[in-house]
């Protein structure tokens, strides 16, 4: 049955439905409804909600809980996620599964509290020190906040790594109809034999990130990179919208993709053949979904709530085979569909060659 819920609360409910019983966090706008929701709900299901003394403490509590094999989550918004980066690097090195939610707000610095997507680089390039990447899921509706949060726990357990759910303030605050599909949860994950659960009757399990021998550390890095190759081959996802005959392709994720889809509809109504590729995973990046449109697409317009970050990945995917334009708003300003439509018109396509401008 569908219910009307706020995005932030949906993440919390989805986590509980996915079997998460540990949440460690620290409040920050615009995601505070999520810890507030879990503060009430976790005790009801026998779980633990703990408001830590800081983001740094919270992420290290995640490390501890994940080490015991428990499903665990933390959440924050941009400045708080920056504070967690050391812990995320350690979780990655120790190959501990966990879910990290970033409800992005405008930066840099303390920035503001309005929606933004300016943590794309941080999220998709690892964020902390060392050679690593995390799976990054980019929901674009309240329903996807539920679906992707549940999926994140499965992916984290399957690949033994942190998985980030990357939302933004608008999505966290908005209400839409949502249905929790527990039947989609994976039922055949391997047992966590590596967890530190008390070693009586078995060999000790050690969870560690320190390798003073460079040969061993290189081996460990190779192992991580192999894992990332496997993920790149198996887990990249994108949604295409009206791309089949599109001459102009918009690339956008999250809330921006919702707005851009309205701009695509308006462009179509004017006779402009526009379409959209929406990455649902930001890492691994669904390059092939973009590349497949290049057989008929004349130009690409990347739209983001930042100064142009996913733009780099779009350009890498396109490999110079089509001009890539960019439109973005920063500081917490949400782009309007009408603004995106204006950009589409400027880029033109066949029926609007008079508007063509240089890249």
């Amino acid at each position, binding site marked *: 049955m*569908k*219910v*009307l819920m706020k995005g932030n609360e949906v993440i919390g409910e989805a986590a509980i439905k996915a079997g998460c019983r540990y949440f460690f966090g620290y409040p920050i*706008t*615009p995601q505070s409804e999520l810890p507030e929701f879990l503060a009430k709900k976790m005790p009801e299901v026998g779980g633990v909600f703990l408001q830590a003394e800081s983001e740094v403490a919270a992420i290290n509590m995640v490390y501890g809980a994940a080490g015991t094999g428990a499903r665990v989550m933390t959440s924050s918004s941009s400045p708080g996620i920056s504070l967690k980066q050391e812990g995320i690097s350690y979780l990655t090195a120790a190959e501990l599964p966990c879910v990290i939610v970033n409800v992005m707000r405008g930066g840099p610095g303390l920035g503001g*509290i*309005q929606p933004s997507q300016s943590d794309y680089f941080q999220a998709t390039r690892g964020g902390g020190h060392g050679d690593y990447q995390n799976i990054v899921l980019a929901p674009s509706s309240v329903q996807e906040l539920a679906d992707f949060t549940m999926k994140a726990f499965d992916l984290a357990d399957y690949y033994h790594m942190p998985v980030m759910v990357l939302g933004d*303030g*608008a999505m966290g*605050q*908005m*209400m*839409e*109809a949502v249905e929790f599909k527990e039947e989609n949860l994976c039922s055949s994950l391997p047992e966590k034999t590596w967890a530190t659960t008390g070693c009586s009757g078995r060999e000790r399990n050690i969870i560690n990130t320190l390798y003073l021998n460079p040969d061993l550390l290189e081996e460990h890095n190779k192992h991580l990179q192999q894992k990332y190759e496997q993920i790149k081959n198996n887990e990249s996802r994108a949604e295409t919208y009206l791309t089949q005959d599109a001459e102009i392709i918009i690339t956008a994720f999250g*809330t921006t993709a*919702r*707005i851009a*889809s*309205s*701009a695509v*509809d308006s462009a179509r109504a004017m006779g402009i053949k526009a379409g959209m590729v929406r990455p649902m995973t930001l890492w691994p990046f669904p390059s092939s979904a973009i590349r497949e449109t290049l057989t008929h697409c004349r130009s690409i317009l990347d739209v983001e709530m930042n100064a142009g970050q996913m733009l780099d990945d779009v350009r890498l995917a396109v490999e110079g085979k089509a001009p890539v334009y960019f439109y973005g708003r920063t500081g917490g300003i*949400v782009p*309007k*569909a*009408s603004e995106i439509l204006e950009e589409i018109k400027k880029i033109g396509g066949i029926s609007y060659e008079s508007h063509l401008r240089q890249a």
Partner: protein
Amino acid sequence: MHFESVIAGFGGQGVLLTGQIIAYAGLMEDKHVSWIPSYGPEMRGGTANCSVIVSDNKIGSPMVEEPGVALIFNEPSMEKFEQQVRPGGIMVVNSSIVEKKVSRKDIHVYDIPAGKIAKQLGNERVANMVMLGAYLELTGVVSTESAINALGKIISKKKQSILEINKKAAEIGASVAAGYSVDSLLG
């Protein structure tokens, strides 16, 4: 059917709740719905607004640029949204609080003395339901019955007794919007 509305007023006037009722009622009628508040360092007495979309189709942008309907609870909201309403659109104004008159000639304006009606009903806090009743009468986005059922779902079990006065407020709001005089309704 695709309705984009903005509901705006002071914090504490039930502005966000009114939007939630519309969205929830839309959901109960199997429509696609979205509700998104303005948020910021806001407080009681400050301004608050939310955008609600109810549609037969999947909703693209949840942001409302040009509302078809604006429910205006106070004067700052009138100033903010008067120019945004799309030509031919509807503006429902809480005329008990808003003294300023709408200058645009290309939109339909309905002055509803929601504060006064609510006061006469014995609870000033149901003014938002008077406004909602008028909105539903003018747009038919959802039925009043669904709206009251939605309110019943949103408020706690302990507060179900307030449903009756809210329903009455919505009904009077609808009648005023339909052209009946306030005095004849409240006798």
